[in-house]
């Protein structure tokens, strides 16, 4: 009887210990960000490419800041940014982001092109604020990597 009670207690404590370890060891997901790779043009949508036109508020904001009239989404990814652990996000075959959550809403953003670090920026990102890394492309077009807080419906696609 005493042995059974002892064993039951042992099993119970083990279960509690594992549960506690799981709770403590689970890494906080951190802030969820969304990154979009966009293409801006004053011309027509390129034929044969699956590009989704940027619509709504982001389209209006981009057109108010930049000279291009049309923006197309090449890729969109939402991802978690655990504090202190860099998150790699492939935006295209050649374009990659590495985002490090430094402390809560402060991030270190690194943009790589063809495997080479192009720019590193430390930036605070809060709800409503957007960071745009962009550059010129051929034929007076432009590329943009837009970073902001992920929306609740954004699927997680690391």
């Amino acid at each position: 009887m005493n042995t059974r009670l002892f064993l039951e207690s042992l099993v119970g404590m083990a279960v509690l210990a594992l549960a506690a370890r799981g709770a403590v060891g689970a890494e906080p997901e951190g802030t969820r960000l969304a990154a979009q790779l966009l293409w801006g043009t004053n011309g027509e949508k390129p034929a044969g490419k699956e590009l989704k036109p940027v619509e709504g508020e982001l389209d209006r904001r981009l057109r108010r800041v930049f000279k291009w009239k049309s923006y197309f989404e090449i890729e969109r990814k939402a991802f978690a940014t655990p504090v202190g652990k860099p998150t790699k996000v492939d935006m295209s075959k050649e374009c990659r982001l590495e985002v490090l959550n430094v402390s809560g809403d402060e991030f270190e953003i690194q943009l790589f092109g063809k495997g080479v670090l192009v720019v590193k920026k430390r930036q605070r990102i809060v709800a409503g604020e957007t960071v745009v890394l962009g550059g010129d492309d051929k034929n007076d077009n432009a590329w943009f990597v837009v970073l902001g807080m992920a929306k609740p419906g954004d699927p997680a696609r690391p």
Partner: protein
Amino acid sequence: MNPDLEHRLQAWVDGELDASSAQEMESLVARDPEARALGDNLRLLRGFLQEHEPVRALPETQDFYWSGIRRGIEAEERADRGRESSDPSRETGGRAWWSWVWPAAAAALVLVVISLFPGREGGTAGDLATSSGASSSAKAPAVVPVVGHEIEAPEADGMETVTFYSSQESMTVVWLAHADVL
């Protein structure tokens, strides 16, 4: 009484006439009862307005604020010119000395900033002005350059970096002209 005389009488009441014209008006009022009555009424009205009209301070607009600074600078420059013309020694002495101190101080400050933030530490107003790619990409009135050292572009070969912030759009932009990303 003709309108011109009425206007002159009003100007006299307001103290806007020179001495000889004011004396003319005094003579007129002394001999003309109609002019005297009008003058008395105008004085009464003026006193009433001075006592009872509420004084309202209008908010100073930004344009007025800056134009006020401009007027102040222009007035000081005029005063400086006046002092120089009255004292020729200032042209070669005090004024000439001050004229190069501030540019020299500004140049020294720029050198200090450059030495503190070496390389392609983007986001300066200078970058914004010199980067043809960026200046032609952004609509200038909506943006302001961001000055700081929070950005690095270590591998940038021939790339120009400009950082600016649009408060209207809550958007920080890092423009990388001639960057090989895609």
